[in-house]
């Protein structure tokens, strides 16, 4: 993997022009995934389009309404340490802090992670839970894709040929909501057996808002509108949790792999969901 063209465009327009004219071009941000795949000879790009000179892709901006825009080249470490991602948005910050190890968090970017769409990665479920949108650019212009519609299959996204991710946007913060992320791993830093991401609000002791996504148990993050509907309006009591957990488990398409069997994943996810909801609820009640 020594031959090839290495380019450093200064703008998104210049970058997408390169992508449009070269099917063997790949965007290079931190390299945490792409270069690992090149080292393993899984991909052999003809051109690497480094994104490091494109200022627009860097950093996190919070709008007056609390909506957040995370540039696609923002490092996991910088998302993980940004306390402005609070309330429901905290689910994204917490997920970033659980990715791999500190050196990988100093390289990997949110744009790289969502583009790769590894079902066991941390960001996809968190972005679905927070109802994020993925902003993408091509020579024809820009568009925004809801996270719900972005992770379309195993390692496959709604990105078209020649498109690149420019930002991830989080909707205006929901008053009184809390975000929670947890994952089950054999050892910290490993890909997950399963993960749970959620945004929860409670009014008068009853669940008033819930979006919940499970990672690592299907081609993309798994949501269950039925399970969410079963829980909204309840006190998140054991009966509701039990029924909602069963609904969720029915909707999973978990892999049988080196980390766990599919059967184990179906058994453990309802328990992880109950534990995550309990933790989020107590965080809301204790006003932390």
């Amino acid at each position, binding site marked *: 993997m020594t031959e090839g063209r290495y380019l450093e465009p200064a703008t998104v327009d210049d970058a997408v022009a390169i992508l449009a004219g070269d099917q063997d071009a790949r965007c290079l941000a931190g390299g945490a995934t792409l270069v690992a795949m090149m080292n393993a000879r899984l991909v052999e790009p003809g051109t690497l389009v480094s994104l490091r000179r494109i200022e627009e892709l860097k950093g996190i901006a919070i709008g007056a309404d609390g909506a957040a825009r995370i540039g696609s080249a923002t490092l996991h470490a910088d998302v993980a340490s940004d306390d402005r991602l609070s309330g429901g948005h905290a689910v994204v910050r917490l997920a970033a802090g659980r990715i791999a190890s*500190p050196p*990988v968090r100093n390289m990997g970017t949110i744009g790289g992670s969502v583009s790769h769409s590894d079902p066991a990665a941390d960001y996809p479920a968190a972005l679905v839970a927070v109802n994020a949108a993925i902003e993408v650019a091509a020579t024809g212009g820009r568009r925004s894709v809801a996270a719900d519609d972005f992770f379309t299959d195993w390692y496959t996204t709604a990105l078209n040929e020649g498109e690149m991710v420019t930002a991830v946007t989080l909707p205006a913060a929901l008053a009184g909501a809390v975000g929670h992320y947890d994952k089950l791993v054999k050892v910290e830093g490993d890909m997950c057996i399963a993960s749970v991401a959620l945004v929860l609000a409670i009014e008068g002791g009853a669940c008033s808002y819930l979006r919940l996504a499970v990672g690592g148990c299907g081609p993309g993050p798994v949501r269950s509108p039925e399970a969410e509907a079963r829980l909204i309006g309840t006190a998140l009591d054991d009966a509701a949790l039990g029924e909602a957990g069963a609904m969720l488990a029915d909707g999973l398409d978990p892999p049988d792999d080196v980390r766990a069997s599919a059967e184990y994943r179906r058994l453990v996810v309802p328990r992880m969901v109950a534990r995550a909801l309990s933790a989020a609820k107590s965080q809301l009640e204790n006003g932390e």
Partner: protein
Amino acid sequence: MTLTLKINRQARDVEAQPFDTLLHVLREKLSLTGAKRGCNQGVCGACTVLVDGRPVRSCLSIASNCVDREITTIEGLSADGAPSALQQSFLDHGAVQCGFCTPGMIVSAHALLAGNPKPSTDEVRAGLAGNLCRCSGYRKIVDAVRGAARRGAARRGAAGK
């Protein structure tokens, strides 16, 4: 192509291919063999170096992408051949077995102590996460980092008096 890389506070010109990794350039072109090639997948930590002060995997870094950035390897942590306080602490605590993981451990610990001079045991473990010691000599490594932190604190205290 010729790249100019800033390595251990020196500008180094090196002949490299466009997609060469930083690890390849360090080891094969510049004979800086402290960083090790273990898994070549970013998992084991043996290739860890500092880029702009932050630990990263040199096996996953494209050298071209590191131009204009400050690269520090294990060789850059000692001055005139004398070990740094952290390196001396690894020696004093016997925190080296086969030695393959040691450069990555020390580079990561150096960055940890720069940001957090008095880490708890848990903070040392979290800070060194992603560096695998297949001799499983973790305990002495954690002791060495905490020992260096204590010595650093003592030195700062003495300087303040």
